[in-house]
């Protein structure tokens, strides 16, 4: 498989070209899925995702993914995080088939072209995160979850399609360890308020203070690292951010 000979790859950069991976703008996350779902987190084959780390005789096999980018789109955030956190396994989740393929190719191309092995610990899965989060992550496995520029689903009757809701936060609180951080950002004011209010309502999350936000190097990536964020920035759009911590909790 020579990337240079593939028309869907850029000749100059060797990276996959986005326009060949364009899909329907919105998928309906509520319709039944037609892609393989691991029966449980232990059924997820990490050697496929991180072959360098889960190959034969490797001592790091006990490691698990710690960051999850939900609805990762074209994967810009993962690529930035990979160099910022070289020791952390991270995974993107994306519903759209072609977009997931694009991210896969993008990561493979970067692994090939970079010598330092920075991209060996990022990967992507095609899945419906609203239904199958517990199939991918164990309790308390994650230290960071990202929800950047999620689909707004404006209509009231479609609010339950939103990827942040008090109900889904139960599951996110389950896969996040105490002290783990959930990052959300959007350019849609109404959605920003919605996400913040869900997090405020949920007893297992608390807001980060301004100081904590200022000292977290990840925060500035939220509006600059992803394709959607860059688009908003180019158009000079406003963004609305809510960053919360999963707290220890007894019912």
């Amino acid at each position: 498989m020579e990337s240079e000979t593939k028309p869907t790859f850029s000749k100059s950069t060797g990276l996959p070209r986005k326009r060949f991976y364009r899909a329907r703008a919105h998928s309906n996350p509520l319709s039944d899925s037609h892609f393989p779902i691991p029966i449980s987190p232990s059924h997820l084959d990490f050697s496929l995702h991180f072959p360098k780390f889960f190959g034969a005789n490797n001592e790091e096999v006990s490691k698990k993914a710690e960051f999850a980018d939900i609805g990762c789109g074209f994967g810009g955030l993962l690529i930035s995080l990979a160099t910022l956190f070289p020791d952390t396994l991270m995974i993107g989740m994306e519903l759209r088939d072609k977009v997931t393929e694009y991210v896969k190719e993008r990561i493979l191309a970067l692994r090939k072209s970079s010598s330092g092995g920075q991209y060996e610990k990022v990967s992507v899965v095609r899945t419906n995160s609203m239904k199958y989060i517990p199939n991918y992550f164990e309790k308390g496995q994650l230290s960071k979850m990202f929800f950047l520029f999620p689909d707004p689903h404006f209509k009231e009757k479609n609010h339950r399609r939103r990827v942040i809701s008090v109900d889904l936060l139960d599951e996110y609180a389950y896969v996040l360890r105490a002290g783990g951080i959930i990052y959300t950002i959007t350019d849609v004011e109404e959605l920003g308020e919605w996400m913040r209010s869900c997090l405020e309502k949920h007893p297992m999350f608390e807001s980060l203070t301004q100081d904590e936000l200022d000292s977290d190097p990840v925060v500035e990536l939220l509006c600059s690292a992803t394709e959607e964020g860059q688009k908003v920035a180019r158009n000079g759009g406003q963004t609305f951010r809510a960053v919360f911590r999963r707290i220890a909790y007894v019912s």
Partner: protein
Amino acid sequence: MDIEGGERQTKHEVAPALISVHPFQKSVAITVGSALRVFDLIENRPVSLVDESDGPSHKDSIRAIRYGSSGKLFASAGDDKLVKIWSADSWHCLNTISSEKRVTAVAISSDDSYVCYADKFGVVWVVDLDGINEGKVLPSKKGVQLLCHYCSIITSLEFSPDGRYILSSDRDFKIRVTVFPKKSLQGAHEIQSFCLGHTEFVTCITFVQNPEFAQGYLMSGSGDSSVRLWDITTGSLLDTCDVSPTVKHLESNESEPTQVTVTDICALPNSSLAAVSIQRQVCFVLACIRFQGIVLLHCDLSAHTLSITKVIKIPGGSFIPTSISFSTSTRLLWMVSGASNGSNHPGYTRVRLISRIEAEPSSVLEDEQVPGGTTLLEHLQGKVSIEESVMSAAAEAVRAAMCSLMVKKQYSEENREFRKNNRNDKKPTQ
């Protein structure tokens, strides 16, 4: 068909008959369609239900019935979006709860202070039954959302024996174990574990317990033909028992491909708690779709293993149990077979019992041996003798009903294969 909400066209979907026996065998209840029939086993007479709550009575198929573990309360709920709480003593309806959606499962907390029910959207609701123990009729209440399985139909709800957790199983193969909070009206947000391992919809869950393992282990049955044993604190799968080889072996009709579905499961707590040698043994009975009998499993709670002890075939025609219930005090297993098609259809069912279930041989009781005799059968079945044709029709209807969850999935799977194979966007090889 609105796949989105998990709410499907169920207008003419058949409803399997259900049975539930009082924890101390004071009474037995069956339901077929919208009919709820209760027989008093102490007085040996049919019970007439009295509805004093200001809510309406059941008008559509009842999908869930159960006694609270104290034996004081009884709940019924179903497609008419009603949850009715009855006194299992006076058989007065003490409360009628209106749900926004059809109800698929119901559970009563062991202290009788809460009822939980699940709707077709995958939402579990909780209602505070404060004051109901005095046998008073409560003003009609509204459920408060407790938790939600994202757009998946919930098939079974169960409190853990110690009351700490509420468990919910669904069509998407999973069982969620949630801490049942003290202030449950603010929702149950802390998930203790997910029990993941089934490869088809989960149909039924129940707890196994004995004095050494008072907090109990969970057993589940599924459309994947297996029964599984779980540790709910960690969600670990302890053992899997595939019942399909046993059941298929005994199938009379070999030409038809058999999809074995575990349709119901119930625990048989040990009768003799003093006998230390058998203290770790807990037996299970389960009914399997397409199979005229029940399977008895043995669960070793210290070794964490499941094994099939025996199969009890039910003689005399096409009796495929749709629901089973075990009476600990009399060691009788109650079984019902039947289904109703639409709300106005007069539902006939067949009730059968097995005594000495752990003994060899167990005996399937003749009608005249049944507690309550023909008076009971006439009331619960609709009439004393049920023709063979009614029974086979019921069996067929039940098959369809129980398979519907799986069949829908398979069809979409097939469609997908078809579409995949007919794609014309594959590049020709050069």
